[in-house]
């Protein structure tokens, strides 16, 4: 016995009325949240990480008692201006496609001789436990503010990383059958009041990628792209994404490529 036409019509009329009411409440809530964000002005606590990162960059440390001014982020030794706008990319010396964070680890381990485990003991800061990786990342990223994203994308390994990122983006798994695409595959969607950029389009990818890394108000910490990806997988109910893994760098390559042409404005300030 299928639903009588009358009930179906009632359903339609009912939901239309609701939509009108909901739409009204929805825009005023989004207005109010936009206003809340504006009240932070340009006093972003990320600057505290930037100045700590600058100090770390210039301080001689580790067994080799060297600073990081010879670190090559792709534009030549010590060049940080605009470097983040052209990452991830292939590096001949490590024979790998690297994102900013794994590249910083390479510099710290080779130039300063600090063991990888020691440097990454506190990968993601938590109050008193401060992360040097986050501070250095904030410093380097800020030096690409205003620069357009432009990935070299010539090396086959870079293209392979992009393809893996694209595949991982829609890999549905875990108890909830979630993939990145589940939440970031469509336009104009949101979780609770949290707007979700559609990361498969240039506009959506730019809206997200150009503001990361960012200071997260909810945690009072500056968070990087590697943190952003592993925390998203945590909420997808999947196991832990390994730092600097193929999928982490592949997804970053996928997002950066989609956001190409966008102007970097990181570190941003986020919920």
């Amino acid at each position, binding site marked *: 016995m299928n639903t009588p036409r009358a009930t179906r019509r009632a359903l339609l009329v009912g939901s239309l009325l609701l939509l009108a009411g909901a739409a009204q409440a929805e825009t005023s809530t989004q207005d109010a949240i936009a206003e809340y964000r504006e009240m932070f002005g340009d*006093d972003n*606590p990320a*600057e*505290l990480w930037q*100045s*700590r990162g600058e100090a770390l960059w210039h301080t001689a440390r580790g067994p080799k008692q060297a600073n990081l001014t010879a670190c090559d982020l792709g534009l030549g030794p010590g060049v940080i201006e605009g470097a983040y706008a052209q990452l991830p990319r292939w590096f001949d010396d490590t024979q790998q496609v690297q994102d900013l964070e794994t590249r910083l680890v390479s510099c710290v381990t080779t130039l300063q001789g600090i063991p990888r485990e020691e440097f990454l003991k506190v990968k993601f800061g*938590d*109050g*008193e*436990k401060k992360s040097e990786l986050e501070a250095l990342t904030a410093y380097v990223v800020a030096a690409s503010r205003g620069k357009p994203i432009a990935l070299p994308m010539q090396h086959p390994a870079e293209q392979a990383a992009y393809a893996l990122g694209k595949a991982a983006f829609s890999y549905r798994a875990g108890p909830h059958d979630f993939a990145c695409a589940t939440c970031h595959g469509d336009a104009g969607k949101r979780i609770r009041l949290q707007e979700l950029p559609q990361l498969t389009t240039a506009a959506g990818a730019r809206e997200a990628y150009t503001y990361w890394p960012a200071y997260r108000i909810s945690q*009072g910490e500056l968070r990087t792209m590697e943190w952003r990806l592993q925390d998203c997988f945590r909420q997808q109910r999947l196991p832990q994404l390994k730092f600097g893994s193929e999928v982490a760098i592949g997804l970053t390559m996928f997002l950066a490529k989609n956001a190409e042409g966008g102007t970097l404005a990181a570190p941003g300030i986020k919920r």
Partner: protein
Amino acid sequence: MSDPMRIRAAVKGEKVEVKILMSHVMETGQRKDAEGAVVPAHYITKVTASCNGRDVLSADWGPSVSKNPYLSFRFKGGAKGDKLKVTWTDTAGDSRSDEVSIG
């Protein structure tokens, strides 16, 4: 050793406008860290500011001032090049002072 504050102090008309970001955890004593252990209370309780030695502001804070605190205020009688000094003290007895010349 705590991190330096970011202090912006600039003459605006006949007043000096000050904007400060302080690096501090402002722990309420309620929060649990990643491993689930309660993080003890640790927050700034006192802030003072002076211009060339003259007091221009003092404040008493509790744990509900946000982490990495932001503070902005305005005062008259300061000129370009004067020294603005800001000091905070916290529940652990730590203290930090930073000084900038007014722009």
